[in-house]
């Protein structure tokens, strides 16, 4: 795999020569099978640590990332390795520390900003939406903003309305930012490494519910390109498009549907901006039916965007109206049963597919 050069320069303008790796095709990536099994949180940590070893401009800051070893243990041990100058505990001042990281990025540093949860990013909404994604444009190409914002996104832990946000639909609306939403440890590592190298602001959405998920992650270094979906399961009955945690619900539903002879194709988008619409179109041309499974609310969601683009670009290939399955259109409830019904769970996906293929 590509090994990038050590970065010697201490500070240099962010817009100069993005040092992106030579990305390879999906089948050339190291194998997804193997015995080196790590948790999602460890995969994230490996990605950050590898890039921090390579490039001194990269640093991590956020609440409880250092001495506490991460509120969710993502950054465990990183303080020991990199020291308090590069693994930085912050006050609960999201507006302040996200805002100052943006200007540090304009200077040429490479901040990784951890939001304990994306739900807490709203108090930093002005800098992350008004400054980071627009800096290059507003400065007429003078100042880029190579920064990664990352943290937990989505409901599932009975945290109720204010702590269960899915920010993908809200934030993906803004031009100038990129958004990655991994569904498994292997992709999490490869995408986060790419995010750190990317010269643009990347919003990286993880899920507290998945941090303990385990899978093979190779020893070998690898980078997963943005804008390339993965066929997580092949099938010809219907295309399921998803990203992040619900990909796993789709795969679970697909398993059950396969027992009934319904072979669904599951596409894991991996990044939302860029969105690999070509892979979706290719799949729709094969299956002629599409269901988008999205854990944000339906109104003006990523699902609405995918469905719109499908209607615009391969309407004639559809045998039935494209459909979406979102989180129910209400604030997140606390009670366990209500929360389960609220999310796009395997049961709801199963029912939706059945009603589409039987129609």
């Amino acid at each position: 795999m590509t090994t990038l050069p050590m970065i010697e320069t201490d500070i240099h303008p962010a817009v100069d020569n993005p040092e992106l790796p030579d990305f390879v095709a999906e089948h050339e990536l190291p194998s997804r099978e193997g015995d080196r099994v790590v948790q999602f949180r460890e995969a994230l940590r490996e990605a950050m640590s590898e890039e921090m070893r390579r490039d001194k401009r990269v640093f991590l800051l956020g609440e409880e990332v250092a001495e506490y070893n991460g509120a969710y243990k993502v950054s465990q041990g990183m303080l020991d390795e990199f020291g308090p100058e590069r693994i930085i505990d912050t006050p609960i001042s999201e507006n302040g520390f996200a805002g100052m990281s943006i200007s540090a990025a304009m200077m040429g540093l490479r901040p990784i900003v951890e939001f304990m949860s994306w739900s807490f990013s709203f108090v930093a909404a002005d800098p992350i939406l008004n400054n980071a994604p627009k800096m290059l444009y507003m400065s007429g190409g003078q100042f880029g903003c190579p920064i990664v914002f990352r943290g937990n996104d989505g409901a599932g832990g009975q945290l109720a309305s204010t702590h269960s946000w899915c920010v993908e639909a809200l934030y993906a609306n803004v031009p100038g930012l990129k958004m990655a939403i991994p569904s498994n440890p292997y992709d999490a590592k490869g995408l986060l490494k790419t995010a750190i190298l990317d010269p643009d602001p990347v919003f990286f959405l993880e899920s507290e519910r998945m941090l303990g998920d385990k899978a093979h992650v190779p020893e070998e270094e690898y980078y997963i390109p943005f804008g390339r979906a993965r066929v997580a399961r092949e099938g010809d009955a219907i295309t399921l498009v998803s990203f992040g945690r619900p990909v796993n619900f789709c795969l679970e539903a697909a398993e059950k549907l396969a027992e009934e002879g319904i072979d669904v194709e599951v596409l894991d988008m991996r990044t939302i901006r860029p969105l690999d619409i070509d892979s979706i179109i290719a799949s729709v041309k094969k299956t002629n039916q599409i269901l988008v499974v999205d854990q944000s609310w339906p109104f003006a969601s990523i699902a609405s965007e995918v469905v719109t683009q499908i209607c615009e670009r391969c309407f004639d290939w559809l045998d039935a109206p494209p459909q979406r399955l979102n989180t129910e259109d209400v604030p997140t409830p606390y009670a366990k049963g209500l929360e389960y019904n609220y999310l796009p769970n395997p049961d709801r996906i199963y029912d939706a597919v059945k009603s589409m293929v039987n129609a």
Partner: protein
Amino acid sequence: MTQATVQSEQSMTTAKADSQTAGLAPTAKNARDLPKEVLLKWLRDMQLIREFENRTMQAYQQAKIGGFCHIYTGQEAVAVGTIGCVNSDDPVITAYRDHGHALARGMTPEACMAEMFGKITGCAKGKGGSMHMFDRPNWLFGGHGIVSAQTPMGAGFAFATKYEHEVLGKTLEGGEAKKKVTLCYMGDGALDQGAFHEAQNIASLWGLPVIYILENNSYSMGTAIDRHTANHENLIDRAKGYGMIGVKIDGLDIMNIYNEFKPIVDQCREESRPAFIDLKTYRYQGHSMSDPQKYRTKDEVDQYKDRDSIAKLVSDLMEMGYLSEDDWKSTQKALRDEVRAAIDAAESAPVPEDDELFTDVYANPEKNLSPTATYSHGTKNPLM
């Protein structure tokens, strides 16, 4: 549990004029001169919170409670003492460590526990959980999960009560307007949010009667105060910088809280001014139910437990001849029974119906608000 009430002539007239009957805060120069019943009520309320929280932890460990759950033990004197200084219709708002404030304000243990059990009989019908205790009849405007979200809101209640008094000339319910004070609780972590600084500036600029009560337990999650806020030993100077009243109070002795806090309440109410109180307290448990607490020593925790606020009040009351060993034992037993009954009630209460997911979203659930959902009015809130 209801607010300790001392009826004065004034409160009788207010009570007639206002549908929300007001219990006035008891008044004395020194807490020791307060009626015995008031002092015993404080003890009862503090012990109720202690007992309630201990059972909450058990229920959480048995997975009957989910989500984030923050325990209030150690800080009981703060909620009971400060709420004991205001009238029962003064607005109160707090953060997510809110069970103590809810109980001190008069929410029943049943409604509070059922909320955490995710039951329809909970104060938010199971929709809010541990961090979101709301009690309209008792003027509790919530627990709030986003750090410092409550601080601008605290100013807003004060704005509304001032508006009632100065513009409407009557309360929004139609009663006789009166000068009210809002209590807004916050953790030391909330000091670091910009929202709080904007709120203080507005409150002082516009003379809003809100009191920010900093429950200074020295930790914002795992970060000690000297690592998260600048010049932490002089916090009241910040308030003074905004032209607010700023006072530091030892929060482990409820009598002391009353003695120092009550005059501030009276002044803020009379003069329509904001205040900031740095109340030193300590939490016995971890930040939430999942906190290994490596950032502090057991010794430190024990030192504070040696100065336990409930033990202090018990010994004061015994010394004053207001409480015997037997009284104390029977009070504790009665409270254990009360909390056990609340657990049983929460356990046997029904979960919300599936349809409840789509209720209480809009006050006016008209057509076409959603591409997928049909909204309706919810079942009546059990507190209303």
